[in-house]
């Protein structure tokens, strides 16, 4: 009884400073097969919220409100993540949603946001499918999957000697299928001949057959859209089967320190792409700039950030900017404000097109002497591409 009276009294006595924080909720892969990349998002959300709160939080009208964060572990299970987003909205009453990692998760989870009319800003899914359904409440900070190989193919057409034949391999999930679809068109437009165009099962561990075909078809360039585990196996088996195309490029892995570490010297020569490099020219309201951000991240979490990390931070900043612009935490008003946000961040310029997706160029990168080197970002080569790659015996 006393407790109840105390509770009633506390309702009336709550000072303004105790105003409820604005809560962001997300379901992220903290365990399970995708945990390795999922951690970027958890760390990014926490780091961004910590920084923004330290700077006073969100300014809504004249009131500063803190951000609270609710992160659940979906164990790399899509069905669980859908249930958790329902729980976040229904039970935990979070105000806004941040995304999980990976397109297949975003595809499923964004339906919850859409149905509940609560905006979800996500930095983990790039598949064009996410934005082709006419959804109004999904916003994404990863550039379109269909253009992941855009800069690479453009660079290929400017190489001397120009690669004549291309092999395109892709895993059978939503993101990689989108990449392949876009890449196929780009290759046709560039007039490059595709000699192998093959889909493989996600989590495949043996690539000896595909590699043997690459060797037998004599593909000059190999483009692989897949997952880090597959690409690790692909490169290791390429070495042991002595398959060395003149150029090979991968959608994931190359920008991640963990990936390079696992392969050691064998990672050298692998190309890839990233929408983000930790450059001091990318200024940020809360972190100073991208270079400072990368350094602070490394000190705090003891591993290097890659574009997943920056993309995750950008989603939090986009929400904060939209809430401030809307001057309210009303989901509808914030959703409308999100369509108009446009600000510079450590990730680059954040603004969403009419489908809700960001537009950023992909920078082609290559691992040279154990380091990620930017190669081509449209127009001109930034650094020299190691091309054609030497046979394995001479590396």
């Amino acid at each position, binding site marked *: 009884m006393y407790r109840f009276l105390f509770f009633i009294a506390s309702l009336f006595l709550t000072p303004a400073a105790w105003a409820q924080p604005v809560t962001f909720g997300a379901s992220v892969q903290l365990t399970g097969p995708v945990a*390795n990349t999922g951690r970027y998002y958890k760390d990014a959300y926490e780091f961004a919220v910590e920084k923004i709160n330290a700077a006073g939080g969100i300014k809504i009208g004249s009131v500063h409100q803190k951000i609270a964060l609710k992160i659940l572990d979906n164990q790399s299970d899509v069905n669980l993540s859908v249930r958790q987003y329902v729980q976040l909205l229904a039970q935990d009453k979070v105000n806004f949603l941040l995304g999980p990692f990976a397109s297949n998760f975003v595809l499923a989870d964004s339906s919850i946001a859409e149905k509940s009319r609560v905006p979800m800003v996500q930095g983990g899914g790039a598949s064009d499918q996410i934005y082709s359904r006419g959804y109004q409440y999904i916003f994404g900070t990863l550039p379109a999957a269909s253009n992941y190989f855009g800069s690479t193919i453009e660079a290929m057409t400017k190489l001397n000697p120009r690669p004549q034949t291309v092999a395109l391999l892709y895993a059978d999930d939503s993101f990689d299928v989108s990449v392949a679809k876009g890449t196929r068109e780009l290759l046709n437009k560039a007039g490059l001949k595709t000699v192998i165009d*093959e889909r*493989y099962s996600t989590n495949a561990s*043996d690539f000896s057959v595909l590699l043997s075909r690459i060797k*037998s078809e004599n593909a000059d360039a190999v483009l692989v859209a897949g997952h880090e585990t597959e690409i690790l196996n692909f490169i290791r088996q390429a070495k*042991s089967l002595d398959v060395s195309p003149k150029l090979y490029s991968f959608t994931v892995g190359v920008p991640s320190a963990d*990936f390079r570490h*696992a392969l050691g010297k064998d990672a050298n020569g692998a190309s890839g792409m990233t929408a983000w490099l930790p450059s001091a020219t990318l200024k940020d309201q809360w972190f100073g700039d991208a270079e400072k951000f990368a350094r602070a991240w490394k000190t705090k979490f003891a591993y290097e950030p890659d574009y997943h990390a920056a993309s995750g931070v950008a989603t939090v900043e986009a929400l904060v900017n939209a809430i401030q612009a809307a001057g309210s935490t009303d989901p509808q008003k914030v959703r409308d404000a999100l369509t108009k946000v446009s600000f510079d961040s450590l990730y680059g310029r954040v603004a969403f097109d009419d489908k809700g997706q960001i537009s950023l160029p992909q920078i082609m990168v290559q691992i040279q002497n154990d380091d990620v080197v930017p190669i081509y970002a449209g127009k001109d080569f930034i650094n020299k591409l190691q091309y054609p790659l030497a046979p394995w015996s001479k590396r």
Partner: protein
Amino acid sequence: MELLFQVLVSGLLLGGLYALMALGLALVWGVLNIVNLSHGALIMLGAYVTYFLVTGAYIDPFAALPIAAAVLFAIGYLIQRGVLNLVIRGPMFNTLLITFGIEVVLTYLTQLWFSADFRTINPGYAGSNYTVGGITIPYVQVLVFVIAIGLTVAMWLLLLHTRTGRGIRAAAQNLVAARLYGVSPKSVYALTFGLGAALAGVAGGLYGTVSQINPYIGGPLTAKSFVIAIIGGLDNPLWVIVGGLFLGIIESLTALYIGSTYRDVASFGILVLILIVRPSGLLGRTT
């Protein structure tokens, strides 16, 4: 033609590793009548033990294999003695559930301790190869293959010609009679499970030298081992080799002629076919 031979060679070498992975599972299944769903997790642990011996103590991966085997033997022995022996007389469903539970616990503990980082066992000579008549033969895979075959044959000899082996087979064939002749089921079971785990440990170390390691590699490896055990049967370790090689080649040919996405369709399709056509196993007994 060159392509076909290259694919056959790769499939054969892959099959050797498959066989070794399945060997421990088939042994435990045949003797204890437990389908050990944590088998893949034990392979994963073996890979980690080898990895840390290689990167921490700078031991050559192949020299580290006996240590990995010993560590996994101890783990397996303890799991059987401490957990599985308590339910060994229960229905098969219970042991399935318990080994599934052990799988989950081992996987998540591994992530907790070692993180989800990708790792590879990558000595300087990994990836070196020899080309003959246009066909590339990777040395490490050949070594893996030889070890796999060698261990299988050793296992066969152990079961056939040693007192311990006869005890194990006796316990599998007729427990009552075996007990009358002085076989202690508890220790035979623990020994068998330990041996199964030790084989998984070696398989894990070898897997790490040709593939990549993370806490979640176990599940698919258990499934693959299961298929091979069904193909090869549980009677004789030598049939397990045949089962492994058969699967390796079928998978490779499927990937070559039908498409890479159909690999698993082929291997699990074979499983279904065998269960329909010859439920007792293609090459030997499975129950």
